């Protein structure tokens, strides 16, 4: 029952309106990391929150259609590759690991601008990894089916639930 669709028009419509704006807000948080609270990890979490909204309202299979678990694993690795890749490019150009001032020979800008762009690049990698990791964790937890909750439906029974009654 946790993996099925939530059969409610109001929740589905409002989530359908809301999800693109949440993703745009996550990109804004990612880009403004140097000035406001934000950065890589916070932007990745808000991106994952948009996917979790789709999973809660549209069900497990629809969310898996949009981003499969294999693709999430590959996105995780690509994020780490971007982070380490920028570090190794700085190493190859003659500086230390993650020494952004050496990037001026590729980008042809002033050194402070090169440092700013280098930090933006690694924050993008962090955001991709965090989004893919959180999405995989939630999908794995939802998929686990033990003997306690196999075949658990609450939709069409007429008993009083234990948790919401006040003992009358």
């Amino acid at each position, binding site marked *: *029952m*946790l993996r099925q669709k*939530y059969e409610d028009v109001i*929740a589905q419509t409002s989530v359908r309106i809301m999800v693109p704006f*949440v993703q745009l*807000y996550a990109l804004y*948080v990612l880009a*403004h990391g140097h000035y*406001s*609270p*934000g950065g890589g990890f*916070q932007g990745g979490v*808000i991106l994952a*929150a948009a996917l*979790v*909204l789709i999973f*809660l*309202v549209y069900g497990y299979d629809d969310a898996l259609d949009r981003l499969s678990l294999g693709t999430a694993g590959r996105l995780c690795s690509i994020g780490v590759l971007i982070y380490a890749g920028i570090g190794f490019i700085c190493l190859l150009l003659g500086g230390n690991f993650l020494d952004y001032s050496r990037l001026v020979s590729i980008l042809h800008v002033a050194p402070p601008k090169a440092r700013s762009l280098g930090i933006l690049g690694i924050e993008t990698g962090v955001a991709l990894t965090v989004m893919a990791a959180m999405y995989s964790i939630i999908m794995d937890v939802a998929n686990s089916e033990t003997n306690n*909750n196999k075949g*658990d439906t*609450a939709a069409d029974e007429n008993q009083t*639930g*234990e*948790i*919401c*009654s*006040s*003992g009358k």
Partner: protein
Amino acid sequence: MKSFFLAVDIFLCLMVFLCLYRVVFGPTLGDRIVATGAIGTKTLTILVIIGFLYGRVEMFLDISLSYALLNFIGTLAASKYFEAKREI
């Protein structure tokens, strides 16, 4: 103007403390979830007014928008979970 904002802030903090009574002593589970949502809404208003008090408006606006989003997702997840499971 700033002392008026401070008075509104203190009043809203008092409202949050009154909502805590329903979180602690609410007889059913649904009471507690509703009161937590109400505390979240009042908190985000307090955050925006604190932003006006300190002069950095845009920073506190970003924080309050993230908190509104998490409040909404928390309520959705909790209600879907308790509809599926029949026990706590």
